[in-house]
């Protein structure tokens, strides 16, 4: 374990949801409900161009005709979309020249999250775009990145400063008509992150965004658009936390990745939204559409560690359009208590000689339900394409559930598709063995689970891997039964 025992003790002493604090910043909130006026209000608050407002309104009209999907293996009370405020911005927002101008309350929040920008600046070389209740508050490292021509800013800024890029790519991977939540997001998205890596540039640092839901009764609808131009490389980290609240909060994000020819995007997520209490009250509904498209010989790699949210509905996917392109999906999904997760990926092979790898590790504890759902689709023209899928489930109790729903559609006979799946229960004999060697039960569970998830954790950038290990430990405390 690469973190200290002292840190571990602190973690263990604080058994409840660690990030359940509310920051007291005055915020400006739109009235509850959803109609065209609200959308116009959001758009005008953000001083948006007409084309974007039109896009929003079009998406809204499409959304009205859609129904909420029901096919996922999750049960929950459907959100009342007229009872949500669709926009909340920290009020004191103004043009900031330096960190000193950032609201001290906000800085404290960031410190609690362990991502104090100052610290980040000094220690880790991570550029952070911090999204709090919809509006991006502080962005660091911008100058250094801009020397290389890299654009890394909030979505709103991109709309104003790089409208051509936004207009060209937004909605090309996840169209507003794609699904219920992507339509909703397209109508009401408040902010998010935008990133552009120019041709041939290798981004020298991990780009990082932290999302956090703060205001009660607000949904968070952020949008991420990441474009890696030809032969470029970027590694992007996304971390999420939400304060502890009784009511269910909705999070419906859209992430679009575009890897042009020979580009590579590595997208890592550690998701730690509030999962609800041990009785299943409260928690975040996480309904997210993430998808990337690959050009010729390009590569998109999704790595996710999902420990939070009451309900998760999320399938980071790759469209392997270019010949010889590669898609990867590495996932650890932990559910405890009454959490429900239906997560997986879609690998759509279109180009020739395309290759995809899926490694999914589900861990179910308490009375939770954990499902892997994945589609591997080999198109007619996807000659010699290959897929390997491995879906493992680890059960911690006899009251939880693990499910696997693999879909394979193959239209080309030269393709190779492999699927392996295992289910195991954490062994009493394993625990006893550890304990006999002097490793306490909690620590033994963490050791065994981390070992089980190692293949995926190894794919995470260093800073994230440590955090992810800790999260696994916290999420599974006292979970063996």
């Amino acid at each position: 374990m690469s973190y200290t025992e002292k840190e571990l003790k602190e973690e263990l002493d604080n058994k409840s949801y660690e990030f359940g604090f509310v920051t007291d910043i005055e915020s400006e909130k739109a009235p509850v409900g959803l109609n065209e006026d609200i959308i116009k209000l959001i758009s005008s608050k953000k001083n948006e161009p007409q084309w974007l407002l039109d896009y929003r309104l079009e998406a809204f009209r499409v959304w009205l005709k859609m129904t909420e999907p029901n096919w996922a293996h999750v049960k929950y009370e459907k959100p009342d979309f007229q009872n949500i405020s669709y926009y909340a911005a920290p009020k004191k927002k103004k043009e900031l020249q330096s960190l000193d101008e950032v609201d001290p309350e906000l800085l404290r929040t960031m410190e609690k999250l362990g991502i104090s920008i100052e610290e980040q600046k000094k220690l880790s070389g991570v550029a952070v775009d911090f999204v709090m209740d919809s509006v991006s508050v502080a962005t660091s490292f911008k100058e250094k990145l801009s020397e290389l021509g890299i654009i890394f800013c909030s979505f709103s800024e991109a709309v104003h400063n790089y409208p051509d890029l936004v207009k060209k790519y937004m909605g090309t991977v996840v169209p507003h008509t794609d699904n219920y939540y992507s339509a909703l997001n397209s109508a009401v998205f408040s902010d998010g992150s935008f990133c552009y890596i120019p041709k041939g540039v290798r981004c020298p640092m991990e780009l990082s965004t932290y999302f956090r839901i703060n205001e009660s009764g607000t949904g968070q609808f952020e949008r991420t658009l990441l474009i890696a131009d030809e032969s470029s490389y970027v590694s992007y980290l996304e971390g999420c936390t939400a304060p502890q609240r009784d009511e269910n909060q909705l999070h419906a994000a859209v992430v679009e990745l575009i890897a042009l020819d020979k580009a590579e995007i590595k997208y890592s997520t550690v998701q730690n939204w509030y999962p609800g209490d041990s009785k299943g009250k409260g928690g975040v509904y996480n309904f997210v559409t993430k998808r990337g498209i690959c050009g010729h010989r390009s590569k998109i790699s999704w790595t996710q560690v999902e420990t939070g949210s009451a309900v998760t509905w999320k399938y980071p996917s790759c469209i392997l359009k270019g010949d010889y392109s590669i898609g990867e999906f590495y996932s650890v999904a932990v559910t405890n208590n009454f959490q429900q997760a239906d997560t997986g990926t879609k690998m759509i092979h279109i180009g020739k000689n395309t290759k995809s790898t899926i490694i999914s590790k589900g861990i179910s504890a308490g009375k939770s339900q954990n499902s892997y759902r994945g589609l591997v689709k080999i198109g007619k023209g996807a000659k010699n394409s290959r897929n390997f899928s491995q879906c493992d489930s680890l059960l911690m109790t006899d009251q939880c559930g693990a499910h696997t729903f693999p879909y394979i559609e193959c239209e080309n006979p030269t393709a190779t598709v492999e699927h392996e799946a295992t289910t195991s229960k954490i062994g009493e004999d394993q625990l006893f063995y550890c304990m006999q060697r002097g490793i306490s039960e909690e620590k033994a569970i963490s050791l065994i689970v981390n070992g089980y998830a190692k293949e995926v954790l190894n794919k995470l950038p260093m800073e994230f891997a440590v955090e992810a290990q800790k999260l696994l430990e916290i999420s599974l405390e006292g979970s063996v039964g």
Partner: protein
Amino acid sequence: MSELLIEIKDLECNIDNQKILQGLNLKINKGEVHAIMGPNGSGKSTLSSVLAGNENYEVTNGSINFLGEEISEMSPEERSWKGMFLAFQYPVEIPGVSNINFLRTALNERNKYYGIDSIPAKDFLKMVAEKSELVGLNNKLKNRSVNEGFSGGEKKRNEIFQMAMLDPKLSILDETDSGLDIDALKIVANGVNKLKSSENATVVITHYQRLLDYIVPDFVHVLHEGKIIKSGDKSLALELEKKGYDWLKTDENI
């Protein structure tokens, strides 16, 4: 004058309401090697599990005094911290957890219990190098996942390596000889002998006299129906090898 390490008195225990140990008495002093033999189902492995604190076994009567402290209610990890070690008959595989990480975690957990700082990486690695040489553990195995894909011999050798790393007061070797060829047996026995000192003691549970040629016991006990029915010196083991157990079962001890 030797010092008492562990005293087991009138120990009775159940698993799934079935009585396995039925009034077992045993005293072990520091510096001694005890062999426990006995027919299948006599309770040998149960004894080792109970001493290590396996919660599947319910102690219904008697006491286990280890270094002056009653431990029959103590958790397995605390017993371990106090110096109890069990070399498993069937060592467990832990996929994805390297041997090194496993042992470092174990040592640090113990240090934490005694309020000592974590062992520095440099010292730890030095210790690993020393101890693995002692038991002839292949260098590659140290970085592999705990027991995963190890051969039978490698697993047993790994148990003795862990024993060397943890430096216990009382080591219980539960049929460590089973599944070992003669060369592996010698290496394992050699490792155990090197770890012997006047401060620790070893309990060797075995079916066969063969192991006792290499790990020479001071005492040999015969376990039958959950009780020690005969004790003697190493010659008893040779006698058992010749005559089997039946002559003891008809003895007045039963």
